[in-house]
């Protein structure tokens, strides 16, 4: 065991994949010489050379599409889109090609592509650089959407993503890169199919993912001191959703609060709320509550950004409401 940052865990996962499979390569803006916008790929260019650590021009659509083509052609590309904010420029390739080719070709053209990107707000970088769109991407059939919230998942999700014959998007919350945790030296692939119980509890289920897991955990601690025993579920995978784990928990707690950094309307929190209602309506004592970001482009000013993002006190308040009516 040693203490490892989320950033280092991402890098270890990349290194491991590059070592294990000669078909794997990394491409994206500034992944090489610069070392990655968030220093995730620092050192990999020296280790693996420019053929496998490829700096691309600023051409999101072309290099994401090139990742799709390379995947069709027998490689196992990892494409880094610097941040989710720029991924809209490549969305046509992601939706109309990556997610669709298998189907349009009647099962012939699977696309074993992994796309990584940083996501999320909280760093005062303003309205064009603070999007949380991973739940939005989860609308698209044919994609798998991963949101590692822990160092272990940052380390372990990449390899199974590469083993998936279909396209996988990995969203790394930018505010997590500096977080550290103990990681076993032989840490490796993790299961992608199940949500994780990050904290057991019996009074209310807090459902979170990516950047909001720690918000939920912090809220759970605060709630504990008020005598409310909250269970915290980390979704881990936003598509396909692990309904079973969620419903299993809600059947016991009878109450749920979803914590989602996306804008509220049309966020994945709505899908989760709808599913809980569909699958466990008569188990619910109260309507499912949602704590999301305010529906506003992210303001620069600190106090406004803080207010826009879901916070532990917001979650505590919501949990209190569903617990005490």
């Amino acid at each position, binding site marked *: 065991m040693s203490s490892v940052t989320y950033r280092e865990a991402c890098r270890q996962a990349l290194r491991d994949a590059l070592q294990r499979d000669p078909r794997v*390569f990394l491409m994206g803006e500034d992944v090489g010489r610069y070392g990655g916008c968030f220093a995730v790929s620092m050192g990999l260019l020296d280790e693996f050379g420019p*053929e496998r650590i490829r700096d*691309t*021009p600023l*051409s999101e*659509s*072309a*290099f*994401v*599409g*090139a*990742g*799709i*083509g*390379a*995947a*069709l*052609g*027998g*490689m196992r*590309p990892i494409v880094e889109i610097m941040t989710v904010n720029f991924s809209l420029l490549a969305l*046509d*390739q992601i939706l*109309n*090609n990556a997610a669709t*080719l*298998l*189907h*349009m*070709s*009647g*099962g*012939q*053209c*699977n696309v*074993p592509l992994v796309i990584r990107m940083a996501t999320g707000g909280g760093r005062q970088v303003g309205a064009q650089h603070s999007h949380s769109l991973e739940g939005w991407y989860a609308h698209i*059939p*044919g994609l*798998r959407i991963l949101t590692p919230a822990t160092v272990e998942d940052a380390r372990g999700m990449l390899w199974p993503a590469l*083993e*998936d*014959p*279909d396209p996988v998007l990995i969203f790394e919350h930018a505010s997590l890169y500096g977080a550290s945790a103990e990681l076993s030296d032989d840490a490796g692939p993790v299961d992608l199919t199940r949500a994780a119980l990050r904290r057991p509890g019996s009074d209310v289920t807090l459902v979170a993912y990516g950047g909001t897991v720690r918000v939920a955990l912090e809220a759970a601690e605060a709630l504990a001191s008020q005598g409310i025993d909250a269970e915290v579920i980390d979704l881990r995978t936003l598509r396909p959703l692990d309904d079973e784990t969620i419903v299993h928990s809600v059947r016991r707690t009878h109450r749920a609060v979803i914590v989602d950094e996306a804008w509220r309307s049309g966020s994945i929190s709505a899908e989760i709320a709808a599913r809980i209602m569909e699958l466990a309506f008569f188990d619910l004592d109260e309507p499912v509550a949602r704590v999301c970001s305010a529906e506003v482009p992210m303001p620069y000013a600190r106090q406004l950004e803080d207010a826009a993002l879901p916070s532990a006190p917001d979650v505590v308040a919501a949990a209190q409401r569903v617990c005490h009516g």
Partner: protein
Amino acid sequence: MSTSVHDEALALLRDMVRVRRFEERCVELYSAAKIRGFLHLYVGEEAVAAGVMRALAPDDAVVATYREHGHALLRGVSARSIMAEMYGKLEGCSHGRGGSMHLFDVAHRFYGGNAIVGGGLPVAVGLALAEQMQTTGRVVACFFGEGTVAEGEFHESMNLAALWRLPVVFCCENNLYAMGTALARSESETDIALKASSYEMPAWPVDGMDVLAVRDAARHAVEAVRGGGGPHLLELRTYRFRAHSMYDPDLYRDKAEVARWKERDPIPALIQQAQIAQDDVDGIESDAKAEIDDAVAFAEQGTDEPVADLTRFVTSEIGRT
């Protein structure tokens, strides 16, 4: 003319006639509501696919657009499986899931059938990257129309391919119109080959109504690309004799202009140029008819995929390949 040259001309004629007759049959079948959805025909442009395909090796890859029946057919995808696809049958080359715009056949390295204008270019670049990284010596041919040149993806793809010296031949089918929009109303500079200089990419215009010229140009480009010369762009100047799609009333072109281009029909042009005997033409015609009749019969007997299988092919059924 030597025998081998004559034989090749015959083969090219056969290619073009097969496509022409296939397309004409599609029109009938569309009217009969056997084929549905969008249908984009290649009539008039056959010399382009015929000439380029001859220059490719069997394991080279092809990426095309929604106007791709001809490309698929000349790539070796069977008329049966193409026709069955347009019928939406299980026996279609895309399992009936794709339709006219989405023909796929990985066995022939035919990667679609892309119906987002420009969407195929980055994919072709990526296929070429895979070839380069695996040092296969293979080449990728990527077809698209002149209207596509205005899209950002054209620009990004050209640059990326040239920057990394990837083995792609970009085949721009300049038929002068993008739906109803004439080239001069979509490009401030209408010389498409010239645009390649922005990427330091070799490019030249080719008479796309002359199948021998297309074949020669394509051979030249493919050889250069295969030899490590980096990507090339061919501007193939052609014309579509029919409307953009079956929905298009074709009100934006001068009838005289269409008539002028029809005088340059690549099929009679080749017959004349290569002095192909009427007997040979007749044989090719009847072979084409037989092939297409057979394809239609095959499609007619095709299977409708059961509705229970609706959600197949959203994710792979097999594990990692």
